[in-house]
């Protein structure tokens, strides 16, 4: 089943085609969300919302454009929503920071570290820079395609990507120097 058949089937509400779409693009959407959010649970939630939104609004997809880019645009926007939600939650819980915890939170031995997470070095990047880097490195996207996902001009996307590459390289070199010279 090719991409056109899958989209056509999803428009008819076919469950088989919807499953095929998740199988075809699920890992891609999940990896983008995971690289932006750096949290497996949140990334799965975002991926689920992305596909649900895509199925609901598939009639708005312009066949003249890349379907992958359209889907990744939804995933990126849902990831930003998740980051905002997380920020609001952090602000809310910050008040309770100094209270003594009732029970020590232990990581779940089954799920902890079961799935890979992006390097903590990427935390220095903004969500836009992280998305630009992820699309460039994992999907081979150029500035123009990245701009379609981020909803900005190609110039801006190029600057995001450049900044991301330069910042991380500087951090890597810094780490290397620290390891070399103690």
């Amino acid at each position, binding site marked *: 089943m090719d991409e056109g058949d899958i989209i056509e089937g*999803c*428009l*008819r*509400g*076919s*469950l088989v085609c*919807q*499953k095929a779409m*998740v*199988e075809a693009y*699920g*890992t*891609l959407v*999940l*990896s983008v969300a*995971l*690289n932006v959010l750096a949290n497996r649970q949140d990334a*799965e939630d975002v*991926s*689920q919302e992305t*596909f*649900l939104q895509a*199925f*609901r*609004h*598939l*009639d708005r997809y312009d066949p003249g454009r890349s379907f992958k880019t359209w889907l990744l645009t939804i995933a990126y926007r849902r990831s930003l929503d998740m980051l905002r939600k997380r920020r609001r939650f952090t602000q809310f819980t910050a008040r309770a920071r100094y209270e003594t915890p009732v029970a020590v939170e232990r990581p779940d031995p089954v799920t902890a570290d079961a*799935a*890979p*997470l*992006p*390097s903590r*070095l*990427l935390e220095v990047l903004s969500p836009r820079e992280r998305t630009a*880097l*992820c699309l*460039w*490195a*994992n999907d081979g996207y150029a500035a123009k395609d990245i701009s379609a996902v981020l909803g900005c*001009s*190609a*110039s*801006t996307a*190029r*600057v995001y990507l*450049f900044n*991301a*590459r*330069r910042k*991380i*390289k*500087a951090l*890597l070199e810094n780490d290397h120097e620290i390891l070399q010279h103690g």
Partner: protein
Amino acid sequence: MRSCSTVDVLYAVIPLRRFRDWLIRAHMERCPRCQARLLSRDEAQSLLVGPDRVGGVEDLWRRISGAMEPAAPVRGRTAEARSGWWRWAAVPAMAAAVTLGGFWLLRNVEKPRFEAVAVASAERFELDYVKVAGAPAQTFVYQPQGTDAVFVWVSKTP
């Protein structure tokens, strides 16, 4: 080498994205020294989680299918949405009606609703006598110039 430093300074000092983009395209993408200071694709891939490392999507599909409403063809809904275009048209129509109604009200409220009936001017004002507390009072009658108003001032006789 010298131009790289100049470009770096310009890039840092001028925060205009278009200008920075021009610097990237004109120099940094072509200069081997500048390229060496950028993360390569392989290095980036080693730091990121690629689609091949996220695992299967069976669990994701289970979650999606569980959260999905009973499948309704999107095309059918589109036709239904198109037939309901009047709902969207009703909003500006209602806004226009409210605006016009508002103007009409404003114009009518500003106008004096009841025209004051011009009272025929009295040709003569007569006052036989005025008593205050059973005794005849001093009476003064004023008529401002150019008006039909008449003021009568009465005070107790000292």
